[in-house]
């Protein structure tokens, strides 16, 4: 079956001190209908940039996006004009942002902002939009939605605001929902509720979800497939079960051992020694070279390609010889 989304060789560059520097490059992935794909990685590794670049939500003056192809429902959206792109946003691909306090307009009521999502491509008759909004607020678990409809974002709690964000992304029933760290700004019990809600709504609507997070707990809870990012590149892409039981890339292994476990008695948390290279000073070879426990001579000067291993792919020379066996 043809994938819902097929991204080939996506690259995003930022202007830093008058020079263009690649923040994300060589990104390839596919998303199937109804699937939940998560992108994990530490802060600044390019997770959000990858997501936002597909919808062209990065500021044009400082960010430059290129790709061989971004096929969405068989159509290459990387070649669309800006006007055509507005039809993809919201309707084809919806987005939920991290910080619901700043991501909602402080001077517009919740209702007005939600109405707008329904009205923008004329999916609902203006006379019925208020009722549609109130129904959707109720569906995302907001109590007394008639009252909330009239309120401003600062009058709502963080969890409730995030529910409003979700409602806004769902209003046009997009085929894909990109959720950029939707639970990071929330406390743990609310996090669980929001994830539960996302799952429930996904079951109902059949949308595919691209979930961006740095929380391995969230990943285990939600994902069908996982992409691990490091310093602007995908280093591994595996089905959830495989990734947790048999991580391939040394970075993935490091990440998993860094998760504290309650079934083991440990004094100190495992950490990956060293720091991420900066954008302006990327190594020529493997980007994880400095911190890698299994590094080899050739990793220093040669960038490994993505090797396929069963359902997984991994960017590491350890799998070079075994590839294609």
């Amino acid at each position: 079956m043809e994938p819902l989304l097929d991204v080939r060789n996506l690259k995003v560059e930022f202007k830093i001190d008058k020079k263009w520097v690649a923040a994300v490059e060589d990104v390839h992935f596919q998303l199937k209908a109804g699937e939940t794909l998560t992108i994990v990685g530490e802060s600044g590794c390019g997770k959000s940039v990858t997501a936002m670049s597909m919808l062209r939500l990065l500021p044009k003056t400082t960010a430059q996006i290129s790709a061989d192809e971004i096929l969405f429902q068989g159509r290459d959206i990387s070649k669309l004009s800006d006007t055509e792109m507005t039809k993809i946003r919201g309707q084809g691909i919806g987005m939920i942002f991290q910080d619901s306090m700043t991501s909602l307009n402080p001077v517009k009521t919740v209702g007005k902002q939600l109405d707008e999502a329904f009205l923008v491509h004329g999916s609902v008759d203006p006379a019925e939009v208020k009722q549609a909004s109130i129904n959707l607020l109720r569906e995302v678990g907001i109590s007394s939605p008639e009252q909330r409809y009239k309120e401003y974002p600062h009058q709502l709690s963080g969890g409730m605001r995030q529910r409003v964000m979700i409602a806004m992304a769902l209003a046009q029933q997009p085929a894909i929902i990109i959720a950029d760290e939707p639970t990071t700004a929330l406390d743990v019990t609310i996090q669980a509720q929001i994830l539960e809600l996302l799952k429930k709504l996904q079951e109902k609507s059949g949308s595919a979800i691209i979930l961006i997070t740095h929380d391995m707990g969230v990943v285990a809870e939600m994902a069908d497939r996982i992409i691990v990012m490091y310093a602007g590149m995908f280093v591994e892409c595996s089905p959830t079960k495989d990734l947790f039981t048999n991580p391939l890339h040394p970075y993935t292994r490091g990440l998993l051992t860094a998760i504290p476990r309650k079934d083991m008695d440990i004094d100190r948390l495992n950490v990956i020694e060293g720091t991420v290279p900066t954008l302006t000073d990327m190594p020529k070879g493997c980007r994880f070279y400095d911190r890698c426990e299994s590094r080899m001579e050739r990793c220093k000067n040669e960038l490994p390609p993505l090797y396929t291993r069963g359902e997984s792919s991994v960017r590491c020379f350890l799998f070079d010889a075994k590839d294609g066996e």
Partner: protein
Amino acid sequence: MLKFVGKRLLIAIPTFIGITILVYVLSSLAPGTPLEMIFSDPHATAEQMEVLRQRYGLDQPVVVQYFNWLKQLLSGNLGISYRTGNLVWVDIAERVGPTLLLTFSSLTFSLLVALPLGIISAYRPYSIWDYISSALSFVGAAMPNFFAGLVFVYLFSVKLNIFPSGGMYDSSGTRSLGMLLHHLILPMLVLSIQQVGSLIRQTRGSMLEVQQEDYIRTARSKGLFESVILFRHALQNAFIPIVTRIGLMIPFLFGGAVVTEQIFAWPGLGSLMVLAINSRDYPVIMGITVFIAAAVLVGNIVIDLIYCLLDPKIRYE
């Protein structure tokens, strides 16, 4: 809402009294007395001068004079002009119209020019509009209006002869709206030029800032067109600091009017103020002070109300 306005009015009272004290003390510190300035009849005897001094209460200490004046004000009386002998409010009433016409037309003109230019230059940075508006705002903000006034008179009245150099009407005796507008243009431009400069900078700055906000990105992610995002999401947020700037413009408009009216012989409060100061006509100085202070304070309250409309957080506090 009523409570909010009431609170603002109460806060305005001490401010108002403070202004009157300051102006009273400052003008009494100026060298020369009204008697010397107005009644400088060389034949007047010392006794006659003394009689006048007592009649106007000028023999008393400044503090007592001030309280007498305040008492008079509270009973609704601004006193009598030393210079003309008219009731002060009659003299002021005659001059209020032209000043309000000048200041309000200048305010309107500044907004009409600066807001669109500021918005365009924020949306199209480094475009020709951006360069034009940057040039305008630097020149405008750096040009004092007494200088701009002289330059404009030289250029448009003396050299090009397209606008009159002063007055509200010409000397033919007929009065028409067209003639009034023709006379209004130069002083209005001169009074606007600095305001336009600072307002363009403010508008451009706050529009640029708002464009970076997360909620603009959210609006974009819903699939809204840029123009819709500008009018429905960006403007209202960007206007909050712009309105502050407009509020700060009001006192400058009245202050600038004093100079501008003087240059263009505009028969408003500003030129009356200059006459009054030159002759140490305390009641008129204070009368105009009262009027301008009240206008500025009312302006500030209006600005506060606009804040309430723009920002729900202020409204609900």
